[in-house]
């Protein structure tokens, strides 16, 4: 197979992580570039919440086990309580 360039791979991973956390963990995205660091903390915090829910190692990073879980077919209802 052609090897996906690393940067493209990273972009894809980030997109998967962001959409998963938006769909199921109520991640609110701030797209204004000057507050990037705060949204990164926010994303890491949401990632930790997701890892804790699934009993994964809580790293706050998109490690292989976390990505594997995110790719599993699932219910469209969020996992966090405040979904109405």
């Amino acid at each position, binding site marked *: 197979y052609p090897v996906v360039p690393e940067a493209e791979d990273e972009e894809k991973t980030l997109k998967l992580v962001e959409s998963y956390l938006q769909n199921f963990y109520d991640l609110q995205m701030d797209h204004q570039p000057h507050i990037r660091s705060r949204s990164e903390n926010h994303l890491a915090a949401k990632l930790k919440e997701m890892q804790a829910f699934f009993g994964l190692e809580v790293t706050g990073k998109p490690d292989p086990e976390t990505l594997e879980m995110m790719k599993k077919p*699932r219910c*469209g209802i969020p996992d966090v309580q405040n979904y109405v």
Partner: protein
Amino acid sequence: FTTGNPKWKRKNLTYRITNYTPKMRKTDVDEAVQKALSVWSNVTPLTFQKSEDKEADIVISFAYRDHHDNSPFDGPNGQLAHAFQPGEGIGGDVHLDEEEAWTKDGRGYNLFIVLAHELGHSLGLSHSNDPGALMYPTYSYTPPNEFLLPQDDIDGIQAIYGQSTTAVQPTGPVTPQACDPNLTFDAITTLRGEIIFFKGRYMLRKHPERAETELNFISLFWPQLPSGIQAAYENVERDEVLLFKEDKYWVVRGYDIAPGYPKQIYRLGFPKTIKRVNAAYSDESTGKTYFFIADRYWRYDENKKSMDHGYPRKIVSDFGKIGRVDAAFQKDGYVYFFHGTTQFQFDPRAKRIVRKQKSISWFNC
């Protein structure tokens, strides 16, 4: 529970199916819906009545991409379905992604399993973090005829609607916890350096290099296998694992079930009076495999492919007071026998038990 604990005020609810997926026969869809509803009516006072007219509490439909509820579907895989909490209008409704491969068996996505999960939301349940629960967010297949609503889901729904009106309260399977001191095993085998512990529909997988124990459904790796495997052993030389349940056995070659299985255990030389095998292990150095059934054991020669003469023999006469064997495996020259929550380490050279431990000693608890 869903925030605000929404619940139906009535016990007698109505449902309607507005459209059908062309991927399944209409009667199979109806059957899946009824079976999914009975999962919840069997454990609560709730009843479900099919409604032909426009209004119904729970409306089930197959939908495609954006279907105007602010939650568009995403095509094959990914999000399979969603449902709305109890309430008027869209409340209680179930939407299934039409682009999924809906089936009534283990291929694609089993409609009954997904519907039963979504109806949990329709009744007010949220997601559970118990990996064995029906309300766990990710899909996992269980043969519908073997499906039992897990205790975690029974506890949740009964907390909302109360217990079932049947005289005997239904109970469900509990997800094994690796460090539960009361944990017992159905069967144990090595598999290419790992140790696989079978329990109900689960397997606990212990890799020597990893501290944590991985819990999976047996069906995740081997959908053709039933739950409740009763005995297992690895033939290291042939790179095969044999798995036994009742009077049948399967061969896993590498990581896949070999074609042509299950076969009858009588092919191995057991008499017809034997209906099941309790435990087994294979001694790589001698090519002999030991089968434990009740208080006796048989010895099979893997090279001659036949049972050795002079068997069965009494377990106690050759292995000591280890009682009935639930599970056994050999590792690093020792044989480990499991009886309830007790594990005996047996030295086949000294022909005696050299150590006694808890059944969960392999899990770094």
